[in-house]
C-alpha cells in the first residue's frame, strides 16, 4: 500500500517506530502531487525543496533518538493566507503575488515544533472571499471527485489536497464556512474551532471577529491530532483564549449515550436539497441508534444570518484590506504625475479581483457616514439575536446537527456570474461564526449527479470551547459508518 493512503496518525506512529523514514513518506506524497496536481490544482506553490531538507533533518533527529513531535514527519498543505517565513504567501491575490513574509504565523511555528512537513501553499478564493476557489487570481482548483466541479471554498486548495491524497492534513481558515463547506464538497472532515482557541497571529485578516484557523483531514482522529497541535494561548493574538487545552484524542471514546442532539428546523428548509436533508436525518438516526437523543428545536434568527454576515464581514474586510495600498508591501501601480490617492486607487483596482472589490465597497458603504446605523449597527444587533438562539439551544442540547451545505459541489462556472447565488452556499455555516462556536463537517452520504457521485456533509455544532464533545460525537458517528473510507479515484 502506498504511504499516501495512511492517515496522519498512522504515518506519525510508523515514523516513531522507525518502520518508515520521513523522507520515504515525503517522497510518496511528492510523487502523488506530481501525478495528480496538473488535474486538481490544489497548490499555488509546492515547496518540495524545503520539504526534502526538512524531512532529512527530521530523519537525523529520529535516528538520534529524539521525539520529533505529535505530527513528526507528517506532510501538510497550508492555506496560502497563513504567513510562512521565506515562502511566498499570496492569499491567491495579484496584490500579494510576490509577498514573502519575514515571519511565521503562530500555527506555522506550531507545525514546525510538532514536526510537520509543509509540502505546499494551498490555493483559495482571493482573500478567502468566495465559496468555490474560482475567485483565486491564479486558477481554479478542481474537486477530486469530479474535475468538472468546484471543491468549495474558500479553503478549496487545502481540502482538495487532502481529498486527492496530496497531503494527509491541511490547515484552512473559516470566516463563514470556508473550512466546513469545502470539507462537505470534497468528502473530508473539517473543523472550525471556537473563536480564540487557535491564534490568528500571522493569518492574513479578512474579518477579524469571525476568522479562525482550523484542521482538515480524512478522518476525525487526524482532525483531533492537528487541532491538538495548533490550539492554545498566544499572547500575540489578543483574542486568544487563556485556558489549558484538553487532550482531544482522549475524547474519542465512541460513547454518545445520553448525548442530546439539537435539530434546528430552520436548517431543513427551502433551499436545502431533499437529498441533503435525507442524508443528514439518516445520520442523526444513526447517532440515536448509538444512544444519543434527538431534540427538535427552533432558531428563528437563522434566516437573518446571511444578510448580517454580508454587512459585518465586508465591513471588517474594508478596514483590514485598507493596508494594501502599494506602500509597505505588495503591488504598486504608479504612473508619472500620479499623486498618492491615484497610486492607492490604481494599485487596488489592479491588485484586487472583482469579488474583493465588491466586498470592500459593500463594507465601505456600510460603515460610511449616514449609513452606519442602518447597516453596521443594525447587523451587530441582529448578531446578538443569532448568538442568543445558540445560547438557548445549548441550554437543552450538547451538540446541534444540520446540513453543512444546501447542495453537493456545483459545476465550475455555474455560479460565477451570480455572486448572490454563490453566497447561498454558506447559509448553513455562517450563523456559527456569528456566535464564535466550534463546528465540524463530516461525510454522511453521497448523491448521484449526472456526471459523478458526490459527497454530502453533516455539520455538528458544539458549545463554546467544547471541541471535545464535538469530536466525540463525530468519532462515534464515523466509527459506525464508512463514508470517510471512500476515496476519489484520480
Amino acid at each position, binding site marked *: 500500500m502506498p504511504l499516501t493512503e495512511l492517515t496522519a496518525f498512522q504515518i506519525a506512529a510508523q515514523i516513531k517506530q522507525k518502520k518508515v523514514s520521513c523522507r520515504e513518506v515525503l517522497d510518496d506524497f511528492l510523487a502523488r502531487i506530481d501525478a495528480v496536481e496538473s488535474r486538481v490544482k490544489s497548490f499555488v506553490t509546492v515547496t518540495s525543496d524545503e520539504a526534502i531538507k526538512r524531512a532529512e533533518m527530521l530523519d537525523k533527529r529520529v535516528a538520534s533518538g529524539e521525539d520529533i513531535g505529535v505530527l513528526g514527519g507528517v506532510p501538510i498543505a497550508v492555506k496560502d493566507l497563513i504567513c510562512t517565513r521565506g515562502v511566498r504567501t499570496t492569499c491567491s491575490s495579484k496584490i500579494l503575488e510576490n*509577498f*514573502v513574509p*519575514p*515571519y511565521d504565523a503562530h500555527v506555522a511555528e506550531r507545525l514546525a515544533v510538532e514536526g510537520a512537513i509543509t509540502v505546499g501553499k494551498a490555493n483559495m478564493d482571493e482573500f478567502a472571499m468566495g465559496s468555490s476557489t474560482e475567485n483565486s487570481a491564479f486558477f481554479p482548483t478542481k474537486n477530486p471527485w469530479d474535475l468538472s466541479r468546484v471543491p468549495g471554498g474558500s479553503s478549496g486548495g487545502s481540502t482538495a489536497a487532502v481529498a486527492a491524497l496530496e497531503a494527509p492534513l491541511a490547515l484552512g481558515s473559516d470566516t463563514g464556512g470556508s473550512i466546513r463547506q469545502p470539507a462537505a464538497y470534497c468528502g473530508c472532515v473539517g473543523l472550525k474551532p*471556537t*473563536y*480564540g482557541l487557535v491564534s490568528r497571529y500571522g493569518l492574513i485578516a479578512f474579518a477579524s471577529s469571525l476568522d479562525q484557523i482550523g484542521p482538515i483531514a480524512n478522518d476525525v482522529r487526524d482532525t483531533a491530532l492537528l487541532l491538538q497541535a495548533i490550539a492554545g494561548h498566544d*499572547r500575540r493574538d*489578543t*483574542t486568544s*483564549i487563556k485556558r489549558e487545552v484538553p487532550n482531544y484524542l482522549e475524547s474519542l471514546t465512541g460513547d454518545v449515550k445520553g448525548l442530546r442532539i439539537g435539530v434546528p428546523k430552520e436548517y431543513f428548509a427551502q433551499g436545502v436539497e431533499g437529498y441533503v436533508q435525507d442524508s443528514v436525518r439518516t445520520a442523526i438516526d444513526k447517532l440515536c441508534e448509538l444512544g444519543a437523543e434527538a431534540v427538535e428545536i427552533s432558531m428563528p434568527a437563522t434566516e*437573518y444570518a446571511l*444578510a*448580517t454576515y*454580508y*454587512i459585518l464581514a465586508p465591513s471588517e474586510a*474594508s478596514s483590514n484590506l*485598507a493596508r494594501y495600498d*502599494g*506602500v*509597505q*508591501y*505588495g*503591488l*504598486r501601480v*504608479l504612473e508619472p504625475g500620479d*499623486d*498618492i*490617492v491615484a*497610486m*492607492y*486607487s*490604481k494599485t*487596488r*483596482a489592479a491588485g*484586487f479581483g*472583482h469579488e474583493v*472589490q*465588491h466586498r*470592500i*465597497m*459593500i463594507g*465601505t*458603504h456600510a460603515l*460610511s457616514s449616514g449609513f452606519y446605523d442602518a*447597516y453596521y449597527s*443594525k447587523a*451587530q*444587533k*441582529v*448578531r*446578538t*439575536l443569532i448568538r442568543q438562539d445558540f445560547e438557548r439551544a445549548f441550554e437543552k442540547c450538547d451538540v446541534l446537527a444540520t446540513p453543512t451545505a444546501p447542495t453537493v459541489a456545483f459545476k465550475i462556472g455555474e455560479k460565477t456570474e451570480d455572486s*448572490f447565488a454563490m453566497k447561498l452556499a454558506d447559509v448553513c455555516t455562517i450563523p456559527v*461564526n*456569528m*456566535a*464564535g*462556536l466550534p463546528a465540524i463537517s463530516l461525510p454522511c452520504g453521497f448523491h448521484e449527479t449526472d456526471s459523478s457521485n458526490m459527497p454530502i456533509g453533516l455539520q455538528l455544532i458544539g458549545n*463554546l470551547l467544547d471541541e471535545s464533545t464535538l469530536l466525540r460525537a463525530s468519532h462515534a458517528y464515523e466509527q459506525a459508518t464508512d463514508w470517510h473510507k471512500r476515496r476519489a479515484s484520480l
Partner: protein
Amino acid sequence: MRLLPEEVDHIALLSRLELSAPERERAANELSQILGYFEKLNELDTENVEPTSQAIPTVNVLREDVVTLSLTPEAALQNAPESAANMFQVPRVVEAD
C-alpha cells in the same frame, strides 16, 4: 432602490478603487441588489438589543512594556515596492513652497 452613479463614485472613492465605466455599471447593479437584500433585517425589532462586536468578549488584554526582539528594518522593508534610507518611499504628499 438603485444606487445613483454619483453614489457609486463616492463609494469607490472612499474605497480607493479606480473603476472603469463597465465596472461602475456592474458595481451599481451588484451593490443595489445586496443593499436591497439587507432591507430584510428591518423585519426585526432590535430597539432593545445590545450589539455584538465579538462573540467572546475580551477586555483590556495587557502585557508588560518591555523591549523584545522585533523585525529588523531590512526585514520590514524587504517587500516594499520602493524604499530609501530605511524608510518606505511614497509620492510627494506635501507641496514644496
